[in-house]
């Protein structure tokens, strides 16, 4: 049985008919064609699927799409505005925080959630906030630096 709902993603409204068991991740990647959020595990342990729901970080792989009905969803595709990279995106590039890039969307979302709540985090606060996002390439050093650099820039 499918259910009507509306997903508001990156400022666009999408009317949808969805089965109850569909996860937010499969709908974003499938019906909506937003493949920025990735699937890296089956137990909410990697964070590659992270999106913001009403500003809060959510593992979209373990969140039912219907639960997000009517809420404001931000995926990595929604961070850049009018062709301008978001300061976090620019900092990730500048600091070398991107390697294979598969964790990058989730990392950016977690970092964005952190900076909205805590605009001037310490390095340990950054590292704990990114604690749900696994990266195998970078050793996290340049990612942590990038988030701190973006936070610096935002208040400079």
């Amino acid at each position, binding site marked *: 049985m499918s259910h009507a709902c509306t997903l508001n993603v990156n400022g666009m409204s999408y009317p949808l008919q969805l089965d109850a068991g569909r996860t937010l991740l499969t709908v974003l990647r499938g019906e909506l064609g937003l493949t920025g959020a990735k699937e890296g595990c089956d137990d909410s342990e990697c964070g590659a699927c992270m999106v913001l729901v009403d500003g*809060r970080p959510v593992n979209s792989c373990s969140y039912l799409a219907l639960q997000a009905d009517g809420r404001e969803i931000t995926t990595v595709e929604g961070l850049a505005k009018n062709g301008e990279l978001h300061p976090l995106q620019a900092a990730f590039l500048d600091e070398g925080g991107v390697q294979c890039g598969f964790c990058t969307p989730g990392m950016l979302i*977690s970092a964005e959630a952190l900076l909205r709540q805590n605009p001037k985090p310490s390095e340990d606060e950054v590292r704990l906030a990114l604690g*749900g996002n696994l990266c195998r390439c970078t050793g996290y050093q340049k990612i942590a630096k990038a988030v701190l650099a973006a936070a610096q820039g935002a208040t400079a």
Partner: protein
Amino acid sequence: MSTGTYLQPASVDEALTLLAEHGGAALVAGGTDLVVGTRQGKRTLPETLVAIHRLPGLDGIAEDGGTLAIGALATHDAIERSELVRSRWTALADASAIVGSPATRHVGTLGGNLANASPAMETGAPLAVFGAEVELRSSSGARSVAVADLWAGPGRTTAAPGEMITSVRVPAPADGSGSAYVRLEYRRSMEIAVVGAAALVTLGGDGAVADARVALTAVAPTIVRSSAAEQALRGSRPTDDAIAAAAAAVHDAASPISDVRGSDAYRKAMVEVIARRAIGIAARRAAGEAVPVPATMTVGGTR
């Protein structure tokens, strides 16, 4: 992962009616346990889901006549940040602050954690030492059970079909109390207790332990209290030796199993260490020392 019906009631009463009408329906709040379990193939998603995550008024964290009232939908993140919880029910803040990852804490709820009834759940031991009462409502009424009586075994509760956890009432510890929850973890994020312990220590005016409670995580089919440890503490001065002796008594309640996270022998040895640390921090807090939340990150190997 397809399922039949998704129902989204507008009120608690409507939710209870739906639960009564749809036998076998499952409640979904944050979905962190339910959906993950389904994706891993541990279980199939129930035919009917009653989504309660938007029900108004169930996410409160407030003091009500000296008792802490927490709505079932309060998230771990909200509990961890609550100054009220941190000030007087500190062990619960210790626990909520280390559940899963930041995303888990933003979505996962106290009610869901209780209903999932994992013996490794972080919030269970703190609620057990505080003597929390869980309010269960159904279309035919409401009742309250001690949190320890809620759990029936791993993943099982005594809630009847059609019953829903609506809130948790946590009595205020007596003046002169301090509490702490400590878990054994192998890394600093995305962990689950290998073993854990919560302690509530109340000091009398003479500096001796007037009352003490100790509960243990992941060493039995449910969260368990150790009455031997509690008895050992009562009346003693909270010296290192007395605390160690009390912690050595927790084995009355611990009957751990071996799994990929640790052998029974290791868990047995560790629950004593962790209980000692939890009791120690609780005693220090009782004496007025400000040990930061979460306590685990002040004392363990991952600090």
